[in-house]
């Protein structure tokens, strides 16, 4: 599991973390992502970096499904503390082949207690 705790654009962590996830998934690792703290800002919709002259990598989150990365856990408390709701996040979906190609959201909201337990179930955790 990759744990994303950094806001996008101000530092390189969010972009680099996403690149590592895509590389890992390309090598058939079983990958999930958690978004905690300022990491939830990575998924904010309507990011437009044209004014600051940097690459807008927000679109690359939509490629995650193509790499079979379909489990993005977003901590509810982190959203609330930042005045955000799930409706403020990018609508990320995939077609679940195991469930009659139904369109499902990549994003799963999870509370802090449950996320802590989910960490315990991981083989490897990498923080960005």
């Amino acid at each position, binding site marked *: 599991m990759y744990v994303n705790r950094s*806001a*996008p*654009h*101000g*530092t390189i962590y969010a972009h680099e973390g996403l690149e590592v996830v895509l590389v890992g998934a390309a090598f058939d690792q079983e990958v999930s992502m958690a978004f905690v*703290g*300022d990491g939830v*800002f990575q998924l*904010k*919709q*309507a*990011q*437009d*970096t*044209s*004014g*600051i002259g*940097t690459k*807008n990598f*927000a679109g690359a989150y939509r490629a995650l499904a193509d790499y079979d990365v379909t489990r993005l856990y977003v901590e509810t408390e982190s959203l609330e*503390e*930042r*005045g955000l709701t799930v409706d*403020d996040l990018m609508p990320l979906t995939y077609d679940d082949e195991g469930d009659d190609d139904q369109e499902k959201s990549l994003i799963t909201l999870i509370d802090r207690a449950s996320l802590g337990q989910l960490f315990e179930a991981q083989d490897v955790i990498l923080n960005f």
Partner: protein
Amino acid sequence: MLHTVNKSPYQSDALTTCFGLAQPGSAVLLIEDGIYGAMTNTKFSAAVVIAQQCCAIYVLEPDLQARGFNSDCIMNAIQAIDYDGFVSLVEANSVVQAW
């Protein structure tokens, strides 16, 4: 004096330290990850309201837009400015403190 804050208030005490030390009449400009301090409905909103009583608070709009926000998302009385406005603030203040 112009204070610039470029760090997320959730990651760093730069914003609250700045507010504690900024003197009346100062300008505080939120840039880069500092823009998250300008949002409504956060635990920093109350501190911003207090700081506004003595300081003019600005936020750099291109940094808002890069992060998926716009001037409608920020607290009342925080003014969104562009790079030209940033330059004007620097011109108007002889000293800049970059937090």
